């Protein structure tokens, strides 16, 4: 089984940003993404999930390194200053490199 390396970009941020982030992903060329609901705590305080406007989302995108870096800089530029957000990158192995 030959595996191919891609980047996995994970973003944890405010649930209210979902629509805008998905729009960004589309415009910057991501071909897929996965979102789960999350709660948590960070520099901007606690974010509980029990009320619609206070939860987090956890967004994952698998893509080529170059796109992952473009997405990361885009998010940093547009959201780091004003929104609760963290992001991190990892290497992952995939079976169908043409998909990502």
């Amino acid at each position: 089984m030959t595996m191919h390396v891609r980047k996995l970009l994970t973003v944890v941020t405010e649930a209210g940003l979902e629509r805008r982030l998905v729009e960004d992903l589309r415009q910057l060329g991501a071909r897929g993404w996965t979102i789960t609901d999350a709660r948590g705590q960070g520099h901007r305080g606690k974010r509980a999930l029990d009320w619609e406007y206070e939860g987090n989302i956890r967004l994952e995108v698998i893509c080529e390194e170059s796109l992952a870096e473009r997405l990361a800089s885009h998010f940093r530029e547009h959201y780091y200053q004003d929104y609760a957000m963290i992001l991190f990158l990892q290497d992952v192995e995939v079976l169908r490199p043409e998909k990502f």
Partner: protein
Amino acid sequence: MGALDPVVLFFMLGMAAGLARSELRLPPAVYEFVSLILLLAIGMKGGVQLATQPLGALLFDSLLVILMGLLLPLMAFPLLRVGGLPRADAASIAAHYGSVSVGTFAVALSYLLEVGLEHEPFMPLFVVLLEVPAIFVGIMLARGGSSRTRWGELTREVLLGKSVVLLLGGLLIGWIAGPVGLAGIDGLFFDLFKGVLAIFLLEMGLIASRHLDGALRHGPFLLAWGLLAPPVMAVIGLGFAALMGLSTGGAVLLATLAASASYIAAPAAMRTAVPEANPALSLTASLAITFPFNIFFGIPLYHWMANHWPGG
């Protein structure tokens, strides 16, 4: 001045449980479900009544209400600036207080029922009309019409927010179907109204309890604002009610709307349009200070004020 409506005891229960760090937590789906029913029920109740009403007569009152929605945040903003808040925060809080809280309105409806006061049937329409204008004023105050704001998208987002859609949708459905048409769905939307409101208030108490520490952390000004702004705004609401010649019940409702602060539409819009404003400030004020103040003390107070209004 009427007695305490027992429905607010549920808010106290939620608040107490939250402050005691109880394990009690409601899943977000329960909050969504009860607020869906409340919003649709309030809308339909208004719509059913509108069906029996000449709509033309409402035009003038509607314009007055919108004017009030523009005026309130414009008056709040300079006071908040004087209080030392940064421009963005002052604008955001002004938007919250110019807009309205449907939960507070529901408690006021329940209060009027409790004390046996009638009110004009078109009040739910005013809830919708008051929800939006202050939000735009708030954004203008923060941005000064800067090009960074994407007004088109923002307008869409505000007008298509959950509460506007459900209130307006309920209004239209009630208006089209009329009292006979809605007969079958009475059971869920009207007979259960107060019970559903009780669960809603329990959840609001739990949520508010988590924001209560903010009331202390953010200093005495926010606390003072959250307690003093509502009665002042209620006076303005009573003034507009007098202009429109509303009944005492209608005046109490309009005063309550003026005095109430949004915690659904405004926070979402401000987070998008004025992201540099600190959402903790405005949520603490509207949810943890003003909301309980209004449901426990404000509504009976506005009732008392309406009864003592000069020439009222």
